[in-house]
């Protein structure tokens, strides 16, 4: 990892985002399903439930990103292009989730017909709401959290799950795949931070959205045990 954020306000923003990430990372480990995963007590059923719940939000994920792209006006045409690219990279991620679910013995009809859990509803609702505002620069904060999580899944969770459940790599495609585009996405995020975090107001908005998304993501994971 190299620091590609060059402007002073970009660096201030990145510092806040890193802090939000670290706090999120700690809080994440306290969500019961994550605790079981990280402490070697995950069951097959847990992993199925996790995939089932994640899929309902991920399938909607490309909606907020594409809406976010379309909400950037002519002043932000360059940002819009980057966000479109991002949406394109991820709009079919849910297919991998479904295939993982089937690989661990889940029924395709079940995962395709389940509804969002309470946390996913809140997360999706918030993201769609923010994405509908004109020039939603604060959503860089949301991308930061979700991108960071993808990295964590690819670099830590996938291996832990395979080991505990004695699963082949074919059953953790969704988590593993997120590692592949990471380097590229991170570079783009750094660029975006420099581009949009130009004043204190923007930095605060980005930080706040990152915090809200972090909290709602954890709610989504907490709710996995309540479905």
């Amino acid at each position, binding site marked *: *990892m190299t620091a590609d*954020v060059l402007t002073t306000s970009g*660096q201030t923003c990145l*510092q806040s985002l890193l*802090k939000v990430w670290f706090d999120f990372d*700690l809080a994440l480990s306290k969500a019961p399903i994550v605790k079981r995963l990280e*402490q070697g007590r995950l069951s097959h059923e847990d992993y199925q439930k996790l995939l089932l719940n994640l899929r309902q939000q991920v399938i909607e994920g490309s909606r907020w990103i594409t809406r976010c792209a379309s909400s950037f006006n002519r002043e932000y045409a360059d940002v819009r292009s980057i966000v479109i690219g991002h949406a394109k990279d991820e709009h079919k991620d849910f297919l991998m989730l479904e295939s993982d679910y089937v690989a661990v013995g889940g029924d395709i009809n079940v995962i395709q017909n389940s509804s969002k859990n309470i946390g996913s509803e809140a997360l999706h609702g918030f993201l769609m709401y923010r994405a509908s505002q004109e020039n939603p620069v604060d959503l860089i904060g949301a991308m930061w959290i979700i991108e960071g999580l993808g990295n964590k899944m690819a670099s830590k969770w996938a291996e832990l799950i395979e080991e505990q459940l004695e699963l082949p790599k074919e059953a953790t495609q969704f988590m593993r795949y997120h590692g592949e585009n990471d380097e590229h996405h991170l570079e783009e995020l750094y660029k975006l931070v420099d581009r949009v975090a130009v004043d204190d107001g923007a930095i605060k908005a980005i930080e706040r959205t990152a915090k809200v998304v972090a909290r709602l993501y954890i709610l989504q994971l907490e709710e996995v045990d309540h479905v």
Partner: protein
Amino acid sequence: MSVYINSTGHYLPGPPIDNDEIENILGLVNGKKSRLKHKILQSNGIKTRHYAINQQQETQISNSEMAANAGLRCLDASYISPHQIEMLSVATSQGDLVLPGFGSMVQAELDISSVELQTSHGICSSSMMALKSAYTNIKAQESANALVIASELASRLFKHTRYEQVEGKEIDFNAEFLRWMLSDGAGALLLESQPRKTGKSLRIDWIKSFSHADVYPVCMSVGMPKNATKSWQDFPTYSEAEQAGALLLRQDVRLLDNIVSVGVNGFLKLLQDGMFKVPEIDHVLCHFSSAYFKSKIVEMLEVAGVQIPEDKWYTNLYERGNTGCASIFIMLDEFLATQDLSVGETLFCMVPESGRFNCAYMHLTVVE
């Protein structure tokens, strides 16, 4: 009320031992040379260290004796005599005895009377906990001075015979890892409510620590076997505990990189709380266990845009070894003895502990 570090001292047992000699001291496990040793030493970058055991793995000096030696050297360089010490605050990860507390043993060894005693138990950051107790005690005007000592005798755990007791005689990576990381030594600091009469003192501006044991699993431990949570005390006999490998010092290396984000997280928190400013730091003394982790920390500080130039980092890890909780005091002592400091210069100290993830920070200013 300010608190000052007015004197320091350290004690390292025996001669420096280089990488080729380590197994002459610790012994060959099952008569065979280690296949991991080279790789781990290459990653941690340590060139020499000291051991309190000899080539027959016999203890040459106890942990409390090393602690007392460091304490006396510290007092020798100060303006007060041992009988004036009001508080003794000590740290170790493993004393010579399970009970009583290490502090009692060190006090007896020092032969000082009627001190207020504090024993801090833990791993690398326990010295900072001992220091914080002493610092707050003086700040609250409960004592006018305190002798703080941290001492470690890890080599006892690394004797070849310890590994040979384990059933199956196979040593797993996690149990062998620390054999090539840790060594012995002690460091001491004298704290007073007034600056030193002549020469320079270090004013303690603040000490803060953040522990994350609620989030992370155990990463470094003695007392449980591989892949089990049973305590060594739950076995019918101690010999069965040893056979099960419950008494080996283990490091879950897969969890280890969490220490980097834990360390940088606290750094950013203190920064955002306005406890210090990065450009105003003149020297960084960070206890890291290996060159590998230092580079990770530096990298992450760079990402956060709060990098501290390489020439401000000081360490003596590579020559003195990783002496656990004693490291930061041994580092401070050598730093003060070898650097020409000016009034107003600042030191930022950081001690991350991987035991179950605690990280301590301290800010010091040079005063006259």
